[in-house]
């Protein structure tokens, strides 16, 4: 928090001087307002005595006095002291806390309206005025200009214990500034404490109807480019053009920077931006941080944590309950422990009420978090002092210390105890009643005389009021309506079926004896006298407030990695193994070796041969089984939360920003013998995003999935998708293959010019008087492509378009690496060979679009026979599970040899991905990425029994059986716990999360 600290220091001096001014001139901050009266200044001096005051987290004074003057705390005294001129308020038995601060809240801000999207694309911003070129960059927005007191909302938040809020508008990727406001109801001039308190960011474009960005990775790219643009723009004395949004980014860069995420996955991506631009984001989390607590800790960031604990599911229907995922069940159980786990790890965080469907649940969820192990001190700190510090306002708010604002709560007891009631919430020295205090003097048993008859009246305390029972002489209970308002009491009851009484009276406050007396009317209209005298005080509830012990950690289920079914609490470890007597498909000149041993040591293939001796090592019997290099999928979209960006040139987006390690497809692919995959951007754009190369290390985080030192790659796409051929209404350039050619030629022409621009700048001896060129994320990437540092996988079907792209590449002196799909490759295989491009194709998919009508299942065979490096890919979360069978189709169609057929899904994709120095064959020194099959791997009857990556067994068909049992046990345990909670009256909705839809090449998410 380097920036904030500097900032805080400056502000504190300034604040201190302001405060002195306030104390001296006392009056309201509204001296400028005219009075329509004579002046009526009151200094509002109060002494709240006999209270238990928690003046700062962890510090408590008993029988203490809180002195308030002019909306500020004058003093917290450890003894009773009521200076002259102060009104005493006796708070005996009550607790006083600083009120809560929420720094992630939209209180008092106008509702964000989401305009409908037009039928065709919107390429430019619709924001009017000299603002950013992207509609989702709304950094010029200032909450202070739009804040209006909302009394209803203010009351709701005060009921939950809040006194101060840093409020912002949740709209856009750059969202502008937040204002610090108090939750009083006077007027905006009074309640606004700081106009610019923080500035906000997210990955959600909000109300923007502009097409770009459509994805989280696009949001990240846009924000990065915007930061670079601001750096460049900021260099000019005379601006080349005006952009008030960039101005605002520059002007607010010293404010606290708050970044909203939806959970730990996004937090990891957000921190990458923070690191790139040396910003300390305060990250608003999603409530699932406990799932990867080590990764969260490693970010070394401060978090804003919601208490959005899921409600229990309706588990009454066993059929429907089957559809609730294990992840949802486990999250229900563990989410309330999230704050406790963050505390335990020493991760700095504040708490927000944001993310609750119903803000009424805040206090109860806070107490739940404490029950799950969050320490009360930490809880209070995260709602008072720490948020004040993060905003650089700890000299003004956050604790009950001299000089600070009089923002505090008066409660019936420990605020974290279930039955504690907040009576009053004071905001800037003004009292707001939250809950009427129960007048305990009224409670008890009375003798009631009405109309000459005696009864017994019992007045009890119930939630939010009183309850009374009348007993007749012969102890028959009579239903009674009892109300107490101020000192007035009303009672209604039916004496019998004939007579009915309505009584009204007043409490006669005798210190000795409690007497109520008054007048009443019978149902026949006759006025009567009545009275009641207390004869007995209520019994003290002994069991009252028995402190609940924090739940022990072991009562909760384990966190599993990944946090879905078939995850494990222990991540698999690398282990040296000797596989004995297997049929080994080497993919090398040795061919297929029978009865052969393979030693895997230190994650590498260490020895291949007969009768290998390795003492003290785990032995796997491979007799009758087949060992092959692991399957590699050249074209996949598994392990992603998002797939397509929509800019025709989207080279700036990175699939690594949206890798999702928590998807079951990783595991089901492992079960099909897959060890690695190229995770590609979709085919929506002529130039798509940067690909991710991953190994299927089930359980690792997104960073851990990526292949170390892999050569960078990128997706291009030709054909119907980038032309948006199936969308008649599209207005996006280009709509034709002619336009496509120009898009590519233009992109590389621009990149060449960009390079020249930078070269000229870098060659300057004196750079001081020269504006540094703008960093352009697209051109940077395209230069890597042209310089042979980044390899293209281009989605293509028809021969003409492939020839066109090779022509473009040759004009700019580089090569296309791979045509992926390449359905008409068989028609130009010789030209592909000449260019040096590989082909990665489907086995037999065909005729699903006009451009695929010429596909033949012999495509792989013909390209292979020509000498083109040929692979078979899946482009499908389903097909990836049986690429071995897809490879076998080249035997059926075209009589390829079995050895060559297997290479289509192992060695050849490794070559296309430039991974063949460490992967793709069983060769000493290569990575131990191998699969043990029950049968010939090309047989329909073969099963992958063990899938090993880096010498670590990530899939084991026997362990899989055990995992299935574990899942059932865990489900049963949690469902039983849920059932208990439902019995005790929890609010239950029959809701079931559905799996993420499969992301295919053409999937474009509708953000909003």
């Amino acid at each position: 928090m380097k920036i904030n600290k500097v900032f805080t220091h400056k502000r504190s001096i300034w604040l201190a001087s302001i405060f002195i001014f306030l104390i001296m001139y006392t009056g309201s901050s509204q001296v400028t307002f005219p009075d329509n009266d004579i002046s009526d200044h009151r200094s509002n001096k109060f002494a709240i005595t006999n209270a238990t005051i928690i003046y700062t987290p962890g510090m408590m004074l008993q029988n203490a006095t809180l002195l308030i003057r002019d909306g500020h705390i004058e003093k917290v005294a450890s003894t009773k002291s009521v200076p002259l001129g102060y009104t005493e308020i006796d708070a005996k038995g009550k607790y006083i806390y600083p009120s809560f601060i929420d720094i992630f809240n939209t209180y008092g801000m106008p509702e964000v309206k989401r305009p409908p999207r037009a039928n065709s694309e919107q390429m430019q911003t619709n924001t009017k005025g000299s603002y950013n070129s992207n509609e989702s960059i709304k950094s010029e927005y200032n909450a202070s200009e739009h804040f209006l007191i909302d009394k209803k909302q203010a009351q709701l938040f005060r009921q939950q214990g809040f006194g101060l809020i840093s409020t912002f508008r949740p709209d856009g990727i750059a969202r502008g500034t937040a204002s610090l406001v108090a939750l009083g109801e006077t007027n905006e001039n009074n309640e606004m404490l700081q106009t610019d308190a923080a500035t906000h960011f997210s990955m959600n474009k909000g109300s923007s109807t502009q097409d770009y960005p459509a994805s989280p990775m696009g949001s990240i790219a846009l924000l990065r480019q915007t930061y670079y643009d601001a750096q460049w723009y900021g260099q000019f004395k005379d601006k080349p053009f005006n952009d008030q949004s960039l101005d605002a980014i520059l002007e607010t860069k010293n404010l606290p920077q708050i970044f909203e995420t939806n959970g730990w996955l996004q937090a990891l991506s957000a921190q990458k931006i923070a690191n790139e631009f040396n910003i300390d984001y305060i990250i608003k989390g999603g409530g699932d941080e406990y799932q990867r607590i080590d990764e969260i800790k490693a970010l070394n960031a401060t978090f804003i944590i919601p208490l959005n604990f899921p409600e229990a599911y309706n588990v009454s229907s066993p059929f429907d309950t089957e559809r609730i995922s294990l992840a949802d069940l486990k999250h229900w159980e563990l989410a309330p422990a999230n704050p406790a786990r963050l505390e335990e790890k020493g991760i700095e965080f504040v708490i927000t009420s944001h993310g609750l469907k119903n803000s009424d649940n805040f206090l109860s969820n806070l107490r739940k978090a404490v029950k799950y192990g969050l320490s009360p001190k930490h809880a209070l700190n995260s709602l008072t002092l720490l948020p004040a510090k993060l905003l650089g306002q700890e000299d003004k708010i956050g604790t009950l210390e001299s000089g600070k604002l009089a923002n505090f709560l008066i409660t019936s007891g420990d605020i974290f105890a279930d039955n504690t009631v907040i009576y009053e919430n004071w905001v800037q020295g003004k009292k707001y009643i939250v809950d009427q205090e129960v007048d305990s003097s009224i409670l008890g048993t009375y003798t009631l005389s009405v109309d000459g008859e005696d009864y017994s009246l019992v007045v009890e305390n119930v939630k939010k009021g009183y309850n009374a029972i009348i007993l007749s002489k012969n102890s028959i209970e009579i239903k009674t309506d009892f109300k107490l308002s101020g000192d007035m009491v009303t009672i209604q009851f039916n004496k019998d079926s004939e007579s009915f009484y309505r009584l009204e009276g007043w409490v006669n406050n005798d210190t000795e004896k409690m007497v109520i007396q008054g007048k009443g009317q019978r149902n026949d209209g006759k006025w009567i006298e009545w009275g009641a005298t207390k004869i007995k005080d209520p019994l003290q509830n002994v069991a009252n407030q028995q402190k609940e012990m924090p739940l022990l950690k072991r009562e909760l289920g384990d966190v599993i990695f990944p946090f879905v079914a078939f995850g494990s609490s222990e991540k698999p470890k690398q282990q040296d193994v000797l596989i004995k007597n297997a049929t080994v498909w080497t993919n090398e000149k040795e061919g297929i070796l029978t009865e052969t041993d393979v030693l895997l040591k230190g994650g590498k293939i260490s020895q291949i041969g007969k009768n290998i001796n390795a003492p003290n090592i785990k032995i796997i019997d491979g007799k009758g089984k087949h060992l092959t290099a692991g399957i590699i999928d050249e074209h996949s979209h598994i392990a992603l939360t998002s797939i397509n960006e929509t800019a025709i040139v989207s080279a700036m987006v990175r699939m690594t920003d949206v890798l999702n390690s928590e998807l079951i497809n990783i595991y089901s692919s492992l079960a099909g013998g897959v060890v690695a995959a190229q995770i590609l951007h979709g085919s929506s754009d002529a130039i798509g995003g940067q690909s991710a190369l991953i190994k299927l290390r089930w359980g690792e985080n997104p960073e851990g999935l990526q292949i170390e030192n892999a050569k960078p790659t990128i997706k291009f796409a030709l054909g119907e998708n980038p032309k948006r051929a199936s969308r008649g209404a599209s207005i996006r350039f280009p709509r034709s293959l002619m336009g496509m050619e120009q898009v590519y030629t233009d992109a590389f022409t621009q990149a060449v010019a960009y390079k020249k621009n930078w070269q000229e700048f870098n060659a300057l001896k004196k750079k001081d008087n020269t504006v540094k060129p703008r960093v352009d994320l697209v051109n940077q990437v395209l230069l890597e492509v042209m310089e042979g540092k980044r390899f293209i996988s281009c989605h293509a079907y028809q021969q003409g378009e492939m020839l066109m792209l090779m022509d473009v590449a040759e004009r700019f002196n580089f090569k296309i690496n791979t045509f992926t799909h390449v359905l008409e490759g068989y028609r130009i295989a010789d030209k592909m060979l000449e260019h040096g491009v590989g082909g990665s194709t489907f086995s037999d998919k065909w005729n699903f679009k006009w451009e695929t009508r010429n596909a033949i299942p012999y495509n792989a065979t013909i390209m292979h026979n020509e000498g083109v490096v040929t692979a078979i890919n899946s482009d499908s979360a389903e097909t990836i599970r049986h690429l071995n069978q897809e490879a076998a189709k080249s035997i059926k169609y075209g009589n390829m040899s079995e050895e060559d057929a297997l290479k289509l899904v192992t060695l050849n994709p490794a070559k296309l991905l430039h991974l063949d120095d460490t992967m793709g064959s069983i060769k000493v020194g290569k990575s131990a990425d191998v699969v043990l099959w029950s049968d010939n791997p090309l047989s329909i009857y073969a099963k992958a029994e063990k899938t090993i990556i880096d010498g670590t067994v990530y899939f084991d068909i026997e362990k899989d059986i055990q995992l299935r049992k574990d899942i059932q046990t865990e489900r049963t345990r949690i469902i039983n716990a849920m059932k208990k909670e439902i019995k005790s009256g929890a609010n239950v909705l029959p809701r079931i999360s559905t799996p993420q839809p499969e992301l295919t090449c053409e999937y474009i998410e509708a953000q909003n």
Partner: protein
Amino acid sequence: MNFNIHYRLLILTAICCLPFNLFSQGNLATKNTKEPTALVGGTLHIGNGKVITNAVIGFNNGKISVMGTTDSINLDSGTYQIFDVTGQHIYPGFILLNSLIGIQEISAVPQSNDTNEEGNINPNLNTAYAFNSESDYLPVLRFNGIFTVETAPVGGLVSGTSSVMKLDGGDWEESLYKFGAAIHINWPNSMRSSFDEATLTTQLKPNSSYNTNIEELKNLFNQAKAYGKEVNKVPNLKLQSMQGLFNGTLSLFIHAESPKEIIESIQFSKEMGIDHIALVSAESALLVKDFLKEHKIPVILPPTHSMPDQDDMDFDMRYKLPYLLAKEGIVVAISHTGMLSNSINLPFYAGVAAAYGLDREDALKTISLNAAKILKVDSTLGSLEVGKDATLFVSEGDALDIRTNKLTHAFIQGKRMELEGKQQSQYKQYSKSLGHNE
């Protein structure tokens, strides 16, 4: 054998002389041959779970006339053209259920599709009229051993009536095998997905119009039944088209997803007095397997090559689902969903089912005899028995395994089929122009 060589020469000549004509009218080239034929020496997979090694099978006039082992049968070589298929395998032609073959060509090109109609209640539509006998899919299906399809309409509550088509014939009338096989209904979903803003996830919630939709179906079926008994009725084509359900000539294929929907839809159909019911569903069938068994409801399953319905399910759930249901005594067939060109993999879906529990011959049943039973064409189709149609093929090896599914001879109702199509000719043409040795 003579004939065989002769035939090949003939085709070869045709390829050389008229390549274009041949492939644009691929189905017409097969009109000539329907002579008595016998296959001798192969391993014969009957389709009912049994195998005959060293088998002889002969057929005449489109029907199987003789079948047995080489030891037990003496063929009259004067009557039959004899093919020695020693070392090869003989199978009944496979049957693809619940398919869009013939009414969909390129899914993304609307002009090429005839799959669904306006309106929600369309029992009166029959796919036979829309079946395209010149569809590009027919030769590629035959190439893998699929010779019969049930072409079924999609969409709405009542999608329409399917017909059984053989993959031979110059027009739909010639291709027709059984006009009107089953009415397909899509039982409404009891849950509906909605996007939850608070958690940013899609969630399932009860479908509030479920009961209304069920009511609409009940109303329709009740009125159809009443219509059948009415004497002086105002003609109604929709109600008329449903009469077969009540007299046993039409089956009802119910597409239902969840256990609740399965039970309710089958109870409903039974109440309506419908005898022939099949369920189109997946994993949910497992949860109600006893119910299905009790009511003798056959199940049409999605391909083994499809993703389990829930993320948490065993990775091999769809692989083993045919076995898990079949071992309960439920009649199971495997069909295809998704990209239409992939329906050629039907035999391999059965192969996967065999890898995950089913006996290989039982796996074969899921795409032959069981499918025929579900379509009620098992008296003439679905297995190799004397008197049944000679719709069968010979494969070099195990037809359920990709590597060995290589057809050498194919017959539909005794008529010898040309196996090579456009894809094969393109293969040859481009291999040749690139100078590859085939």
